[in-house]
């Protein structure tokens, strides 16, 4: 902001101190310090003018105002829940926001403790004893779990089995992650929205080293036979990985009790507002895989005064120590989102989280019932319990979605005859509006 400064406003140099420093270094100007051969030096311009803070904020406000103002009934892996103001307030404290990886634990106990608390919350939610302090998102967590299977399973199996209906973002990321390994990806089908157990049993054999199941599924169906799926995996010595999210885990039976070896999923559903797909990958597993876990782990230990203290631990798994033999290449992760998620969980508490999760079931049930009352609309499409979201059968899905959009609502189009809607605390108050819009659009 300083009125007459030039160059970056974020360097504190004055003409005087710059001159002193140049003199100390023994050059006349900064350009002399650059050891760049002429042949590769850049003397062009990008043509970007410098702008004031206010201009930048104004420009971007104008840019974002070009988004249409729609009420979103969208989910399928990215969820909006109301984030309390205190989460914004506390997480944006510069001590948290502008710090980095806790290489010096003696002066970063605050963040370490918060991450330790985050890990502990995931342990409670998943029922598994080990949780790392973040993956990028649910897709990369799922893919890292497959690579974990490759490392820890003694079977000769090299097939990774996932649902046919897996969301493309997850499937494609998984394909890329396993492409450098000996693994290959195959699928099993769903039956009316959840795992087709018979088909799954047919597919699982010695060649399978990893079975991935979601609860809730991508269309919001609650998996009724999760433990059976786990048994099928266990019987074939395949690693059983369950995908879920931090809200659903507050109500649904903990995956560990269904035999899950690993739980992955989206944890940013709490703490992070709708953020155009940005997420937080949840990753928890059995104790025996501890030394094969990807990503950072915070542990409790002691300092020289005998006081409990926290530190990054088991770092020999990581790329900066073990290089090409690391458990993953991940370095920068989603720590700050994990901090926010932990804050949000703490604000809800056990009762608040259970209530929020129960509302996800009830709201979905109620919205489905309202939609199902309309002619030509089947909701939910699958005869299952649902969490937050469900598929909807209609005659001409793209046309219905377009009609809803004209009326201010965004929904998913799955195929010509199927939509999907997702309801949370954020849009539950707009339910009647959505139903009325559906009625108008489908009443043709």
């Amino acid at each position, binding site marked *: 902001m300083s009125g007459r400064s030039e160059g970056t406003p974020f360097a504190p140099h004055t003409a005087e101190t710059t001159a002193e420093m140049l003199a*100390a270094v023994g050059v006349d100007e900064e350009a002399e310090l650059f050891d760049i051969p002429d042949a590769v030096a850049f003397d062009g311009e990008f043509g970007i003018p410098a702008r004031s803070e206010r201009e930048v904020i104004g420009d971007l406000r104008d840019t974002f105002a070009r988004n249409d103002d729609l009420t979103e009934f969208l989910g399928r892996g990215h969820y909006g829940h109301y984030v309390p103001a205190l989460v914004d307030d506390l997480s944006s404290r510069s001590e948290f926001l502008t710090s980095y990886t806790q290489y010096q634990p003696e002066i970063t106990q605050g963040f370490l403790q918060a991450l330790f608390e985050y890990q502990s919350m995931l342990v409670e939610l998943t029922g598994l004893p080990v949780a790392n302090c973040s993956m990028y998102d649910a897709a990369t967590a799922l893919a890292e779990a497959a690579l974990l299977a490759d490392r820890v399973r003694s079977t000769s199996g090299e097939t990774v089995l996932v649902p046919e209906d897996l969301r493309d973002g997850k499937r494609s990321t998984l394909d890329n992650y396993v492409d450098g390994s000996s693994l290959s990806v195959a699928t099993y089908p769903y039956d009316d929205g959840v795992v087709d157990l018979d088909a799954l049993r047919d597919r699982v054999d010695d060649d399978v080293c990893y079975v991935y199941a979601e609860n809730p599924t991508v269309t919001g169906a609650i998996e009724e036979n999760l433990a059976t799926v786990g048994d099928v995996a266990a019987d074939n010595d395949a690693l059983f990985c369950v995908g879920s999210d931090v809200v659903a885990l507050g109500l649904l039976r903990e995956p560990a009790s269904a035999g899950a070896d690993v739980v992955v999923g989206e944890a940013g559903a709490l703490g992070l507002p709708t953020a155009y797909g940005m997420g937080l990958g949840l990753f928890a597993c059995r104790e025996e895989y501890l030394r094969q876990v990807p990503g950072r782990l915070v542990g409790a230990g002691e300092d020289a005064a005998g006081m409990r203290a926290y530190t990054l631990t088991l770092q020999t798994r990581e790329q900066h120590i073990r290089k090409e033999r690391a458990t993953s290449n991940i370095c920068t992760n989603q720590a700050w989102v994990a901090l926010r998620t932990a804050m949000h969980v703490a604000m809800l508490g056990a009762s608040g989280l259970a209530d929020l999760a129960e509302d996800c079931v009830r709201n979905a049930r109620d919205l489905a019932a309202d939609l199902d009352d309309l002619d030509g609309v089947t909701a939910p499409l699958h005869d299952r319990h649902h969490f937050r979201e469900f598929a909807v059968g209609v005659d001409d899905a793209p046309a219905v979605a377009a009609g809803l959009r004209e009326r201010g609502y965004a929904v998913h189009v799955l195929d010509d005859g199927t939509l999907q809607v997702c309801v949370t605390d954020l849009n539950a108050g707009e339910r009647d509006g959505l139903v009325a819009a559906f009625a108008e659009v489908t009443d043709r």
Partner: protein
Amino acid sequence: RYEPLLSEKDGKEVDPGEGSVLPDDLTRDSLELPELSEPELARHYTRLSQMNWSVEAGPYPLGSCTMKYNPSFTDVVAADPNAAVHPDRDPATVQGNLELLHGLQGYLADIGGMDAVTLQPPAGAAGEFAGITVAKAYHEANGDDRSEVIVPASAHGTNFATAAMAGYDVVELPSDEDGRVDVEALEAAVSEDTAALMLTNPNTVGLFERDIEEIATVVHDAGGLLYYDGANLNALLGRARPGDMGFDIMHYNVHKTFATPHGGGGPGAGPVGVTGELAEFLPRPQVREAPDGDGYELFDPERSVGKVHGFLGNWLVLVRAYAYIHRLGDQGLLDASAKAVLNANYLAERVEFDVPYGPFHHEFAATSGDRDAADVAKRMLDYGVHPPTTKWPEMVPEAMLTEPTEAESKSSLDDLAAAFNAAAADSVEELETAPSKTTARRIDQADAARNPRLSWQALGESPDDS
């Protein structure tokens, strides 16, 4: 100062199944979590924050991490509610977000001298993985079966790990005695198996690879691709571009170069730029101007490698990076690299430890000689600064890799130098018993790893039962 765990304060156990509309066998029987009021949580996290170093606390010269000042105004743009949309929205209804992504693709392409950019990778290492995956797809498309990636010994650990994750054998390349790539060794290392050379420039001791054109020729002549690790791009802003040096693929660490906050470990973002030849392999979707000139659209590059993130990457980070570039402009970017490099050289001059190699760009590796660099770092904590990265890269014994960034003033650098020099003058015993003025005393990390306790469930009941 000790702050109890949340679990050591008030907690509550509930039965979520009780009263649920779901059948009992689908619900959990118990959920036990801290249950605290808003005032208590406000104090808990405020106290935790007070036990944490940050860029706004003081100098944070972690080499290779580029801990520059994170401007507050980017918080404002990242919080714009109009941008808080779902990734599955019809692109026609989120033209604002697409415009920003398109603009950032363009800014980054210009800055890196690249032809096309994907913004999807959510971190630098994810960018490396995306980039190497593109290289692999390129070779495969050419029917070219290559199995090796060459990585200099001094490279970031992520380079090795990424190459391995992508299924390549890693060929480690020694440095020459000047600290740079040994071109003869490179010539010996390349072959028809060489998929790529991954290189940081300036390298991890701050040296510009002056032979970069020759290096590029060697790699290209062998049919390999040249990959640029963007961790050190802050040194070159507006002065040299990887594309002009012969690099085919690069990633940008926007949380380093473009000042987005590091958030205690992340999120960052690792966009990847490529030459035109490789653009068709980039992850999907990409953003382009709509053919009718009416706004923007998403498209899948023809031979896309697919996806490396479930959605579109770390959006909130990308927004901040765009805002930063938009604010600085050419002039600001040029000045950022000027001051970053001046600061590194000034500090190297002031530090009394030996500093091998040179001349430096944004960082330098001092050596603590017969002292343990980690001990020196602990002692520096007592002098009120954050120490440098220690014991890496290995080419400098007991290395203290120091990157002050442009955000430090002369007086702040003088303070940093004083901390280095005071530690240099302290006794070995003083170093080994440091720190004493910090929230926690020296932490026994080896013991923590031998006896891992990773959750409050793994601890006993009482706070001192450690």
